[in-house]
């Protein structure tokens, strides 16, 4: 039985459809990250799971139980908010205990639970303070404590790290991951930061304009994006997406990528592509991530299919741990990630190598992967 199951969920606001038919299932102990650009509906989806917003059609099941019409406090969920939403007039201990108080849990039990949670999160020394006296990271912990103490079936996180500075964000991310591993709770987590998504999730759901673009493991999302949007959204720097054309001649199929002032790059078909769909003359979009475009010497030794070509270097960006080298193909920039000590110079020709194991093809009309 899945911990969370969403079937055919739709939400309309007047004439506008905000969520267009969402189907997701999450196993117990899983960490589902809802990711997408602003306005894609991820927060709305989270709110419908919580019961803070209603749905127009579809079904939400938590632990096998249909919760569509249940009040948020009856769904056995807990939520951590972007602004932490701590009650300013109560102490930390009172904040954590408030939910239990509302449910009529006796005082001694409440105090025990609060103490337990405070120990796990190392906030025992803050129990008598007010939220205004805490730092951002401490408030975040208190918010998590309030959620933990409820021992819910599903934890919901709504962009909890957005208000923290970069370093604190990394620390708290590790903390959340550790807590998840230790407690084995089921988590639904909303973020616009795809790095958070990749590092925390067991399952990622990419949303755009209220529609699910792809649901899968981080590996699947990253290496086998099902459409152009997912390919472009995940990964930093973004995947290279170049216009190309399929040619079939003498039984051999090739991808041809034109270049201005240079002979075109000719490549064998990537393994990931479904060759039955590739007819002669078909326009495609060739996608390859910068880390799969290298020096011939640095290419992955286990790669089965590698193609090299020469190109003129336009920009060199030394980034400390790597060097990003930019050239041009099909009228667009092509970014390669090379070793930091590579000998590259602007304006010179250099040999680039594509690791075609990692390449993917897309249909420009439908944006879907081929």
């Amino acid at each position, binding site marked *: 039985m899945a911990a969370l199951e969403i079937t055919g969920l739709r939400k309309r606001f007047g004439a506008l459809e905000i969520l267009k038919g969402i189907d997701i299932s999450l196993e117990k102990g899983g960490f589902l990250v809802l990711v997408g650009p602003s306005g894609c509906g991820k927060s709305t989806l989270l*709110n419908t799971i919580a019961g*803070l*917003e*209603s749905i127009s059609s579809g079904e939400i099941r938590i632990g096998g139980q249909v919760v569509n019409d249940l009040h948020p406090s009856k769904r056995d969920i807990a939520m951590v908010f972007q602004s932490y939403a701590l009650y300013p007039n109560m102490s930390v201990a009172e904040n954590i205990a408030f939910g239990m108080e509302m449910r009529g849990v006796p005082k001694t039990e409440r105090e025990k639970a609060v103490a337990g949670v405070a120990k796990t999160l190392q906030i025992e020394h803050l129990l008598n303070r007010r939220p205004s006296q805490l730092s951002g990271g401490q408030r975040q912990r208190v918010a998590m404590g309030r959620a933990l103490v409820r021992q819910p079936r599903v934890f919901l996180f709504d962009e909890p790290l957005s208000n923290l500075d970069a370093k604190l964000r990394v620390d708290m991310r590790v903390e959340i991951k550790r807590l998840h591993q230790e407690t084995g709770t089921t988590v639904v987590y909303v973020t616009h930061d795809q790095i958070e998504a990749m590092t925390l999730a067991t399952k990622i759901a990419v949303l755009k304009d209220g529609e699910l673009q792809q649901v899968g493991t981080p590996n699947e999302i990253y290496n086998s994006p099902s459409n152009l949007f997912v390919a472009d959204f995940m990964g930093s720097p973004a995947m290279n997406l170049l216009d190309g054309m399929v040619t079939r001649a003498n039984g051999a199929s090739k991808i041809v990528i034109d270049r201005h002032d240079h002979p075109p790059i000719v490549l064998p078909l990537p393994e990931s592509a479904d060759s039955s769909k590739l007819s002669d003359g078909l326009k495609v979009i060739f996608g390859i991530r910068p880390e799969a475009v290298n020096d011939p010497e640095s290419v992955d030794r286990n790669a089965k299919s590698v193609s090299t070509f020469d190109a003129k270097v336009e920009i060199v960006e030394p980034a400390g741990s790597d060097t990003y080298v930019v050239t041009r193909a099909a009228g667009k920039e092509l970014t390669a990630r090379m070793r930091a000590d590579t000998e590259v110079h602007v304006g010179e020709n250099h040999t680039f190598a594509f690791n075609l194991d990692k390449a993917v093809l897309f249909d420009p009309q439908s944006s879907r992967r081929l």
Partner: protein
Amino acid sequence: MTVAADALTAAPSREPTRHSTTTRVVIYGLLIVFAIIYLMPLVVMVMTSLKPLDEVTGGNMLYFPHDLTFEPWRKAWGTACVGLTCDGIKGYVWNSVKMVVPAVIISTLLGALNGYVLTKWRFPGHKLVFGMMLFACFIPFQSVLIPMATILGKLGEIGQTLIDATGYSFGFGNPTVNLVLVHVVYGLGFTTLFFRNYYETFPTELIKAAQIDGASFFQIFRRILLPNSAPIFIVTVIYQFTNIWNDFLFGSTFAAGDSSPMTVALYNIVNTSTGVTEYNVNMATAIIAAVPTLVVYILAGRYFVRGLMAGAVKG
């Protein structure tokens, strides 16, 4: 200040709490009952002003006028008695206008300049200066009546001397001028407060850029601050207009008689002890007194509210 006021008028963004129908009925019921209570005095005032006197004294105040008449209004405007003169209220309305317009203009402009200096040309002690001007908003006017009466008396004497010497008083001792002076002085605290809070949030970088471009103090004020100050001007003007038009204490103390403002005349008309109390005329007079500020409120209520919030909620 604007944040709070906008929060008041902004649409609530939370998902509707699901109230049961009975709760909603109770809520709407209460609100409507209160609305009726708030409106009733005004409605009664209007209806009474349109009734002939026997209907007022003999009838029920809540009933619609049986013999609707505008005679009370004509009387209020033209023949009601203020003390011994029976010329209606029209002259006194004009007195109020003569006093309000200069007072509002002067106090607003001074407030703008003060706010500008206090926020963009800070000097040591600026907080103390502002604090002192702010406290001046809250003093009970009773504590300045005697000295003010003395000073205005002296000004009157100067005016008399000038009249004897040159035939003109140059405004000295003129009751309307006195009232303008009084209202400007005691309005400065509020106008400065409004503009100071507004300019506090105005980007100082714009001022610095203008200084680098070589603009002078007044040029910066005229070309950069003023064009962007429309909202606060409206708020301040409305606030000052309402307060000064509605004032009674200063008017009755310093401008008794023919130069009284509207509010004093209204009070005298209502409280003449001679003869029969003409309730309908009194009500008509009261409405005439209330109309200018009510119209301002209806047309520009949003700014009205902002003014209240500015004086009350500090940021």
